[in-house]
């Protein structure tokens, strides 16, 4: 059987941060925070591990750079050498621009792809009804009711105390 979730709706990021701190102090499990904009200090407050996304960017960027440089070297120095104004066939200065562009292309596409895959986003995915304002000006804090500390009403009272103007309950699927 699913457990109950309490969803608090906030207007103010500072109040939301306070509520997150209070939940952590009380040992209440935070399922997620949904916010239309980045909230400074939220990651630390929720105790989330730093994102591993930059590593995807770094590895993809390094791959793009190596591939770009290698292909140009292969094309202009090995496979089809052409004399351009007497310059050496393997002139690095000429390869930098394309190497740079390949770095950015690989890093950018890989980062977006990794983000979409990890957060299961895709163009045809629809927003759940009732959450429209979370992409505008509304912040949601979702906490889970755990058996060990079960006192009816604690969760919603705590959320309201820290400025949630609405709290509703849902049963976890």
């Amino acid at each position, binding site marked *: 059987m699913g457990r109950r979730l309490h969803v608090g709706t906030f207007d103010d990021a500072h109040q939301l941060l306070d509520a997150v701190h209070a939940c952590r102090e009380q040992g209440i499990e935070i399922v997620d925070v949904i916010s239309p904009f980045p909230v*400074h*200090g939220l990651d630390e407050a929720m105790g989330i591990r*730093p994102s591993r996304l*930059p590593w995807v960017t*770094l590895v993809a960027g390094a791959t793009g750079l190596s591939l770009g440089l290698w292909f140009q070297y292969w094309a202009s120095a090995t496979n089809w050498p052409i004399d351009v*104004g007497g310059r050496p066939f393997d002139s690095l*200065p*000429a390869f*930098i*621009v394309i190497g740079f562009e390949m770095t950015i292309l690989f890093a950018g596409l890989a980062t977006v792809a990794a983000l979409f895959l990890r957060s299961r986003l895709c163009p045809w995915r629809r927003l759940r009804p009732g959450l429209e304002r979370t992409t505008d000006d509304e912040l949601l804090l979702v906490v889970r009711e755990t058996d060990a500390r079960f006192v009816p009403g604690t969760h919603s009272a705590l959320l309201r105390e820290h400025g949630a103007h609405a709290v509703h309950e849902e049963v976890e699927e």
Partner: protein
Amino acid sequence: MTERALYRTQPRTLRALTVLAGVGAILFLVGLLVDSHRAWAGYLIGFHYVVGLALAGPLFIAVLALSGARWADAAAPVPRLMAQRLPLAFGLGLILCLGIPSLYEWSHSAQVAQDPLLQHKAPWLNTGGFIVRLLLYFLAWYLATRLLLRRSQGGTRGALLRASALFMLVFAVGYSLASVDWIESLDPHWFSTIFALYILAGLGVSGLACAILIFIGLRRAGSLGPGRHVELLDDLGKIAIGLTLFWAYIWYCQYMLIWYTDMPEETPWYVLRLRGTWQSLTPACLVLNWAIPFLALMLRRLRRSEAAMARIAIVMLIGHGLDLYLLISPTAHPSDPLIGPWELGPILLCLSLFTLALLRGLERRPAELSG
């Protein structure tokens, strides 16, 4: 408004800096007698360094105001402190005028007489014009900076935006022309249309490194108001990544275009800097100004550590010194790089005067520093 000083320097430190400035001044004076070309080249490095640091202050204030940024509010005294050093830079500039004959080929009428190109450029490149323009640059920068500092301490947002926009205009035009006057004209036969932007990129990198050091110093002394200082340091680190990348990008743009087109009037500048012993200094300049800060600042752990950020900032400042050395000194002694007392003396003089003025500025008018 509080009149309490933001920071009190130990008298010992002030004495040490005064001694350093004195040693620098003596080395500079002796250098003028022994080898005036090298002494003035060193002086130009020191002067240009100080001008860049002083102008970076109002530049940061104006950029932050124009972009509507509030994230750096806790560090507001830092750029103000740098901006107040503009009169010192002007004083150093007046002394530079004495060095025109030693530094600039175009100031000798005998050489101009045998050189059609120098004659063609004479309406701009002449001693009187150089001095008048130097006075005008500093006058315009000073007035625009004063207005900006006043507007950023009170008054409406619209007035601040207008003062910022005015400063940006005065700064961009003046600094572009000044970079041509002071540095590019060291080799009056050479030209590069991207040169001013390259000098500007150097100002950004060195100015930000200096701001990071002052910020860390003030924070350790507990002089900054409440705020998320670690986040701010992290953000400064991210901007530093962008600026070092911008510097490297402009460096490469200038190099690549000259290398590709391979025109006889453009290449000598790089030929000089990529032959002989100079050859090893150009990669060193790229490593210090770009590779080390760029790679180090990618690590979040280092961006959030004051000790690491201070070290990275010092690397960037040394790198900027080497950058200016490579811009200026090869024309003073083309054969081989020389770094001795005659270069280091005047550089030491200018930088220790700047540091001294910075520390004094923290004590003298604290009310003018609050944002």
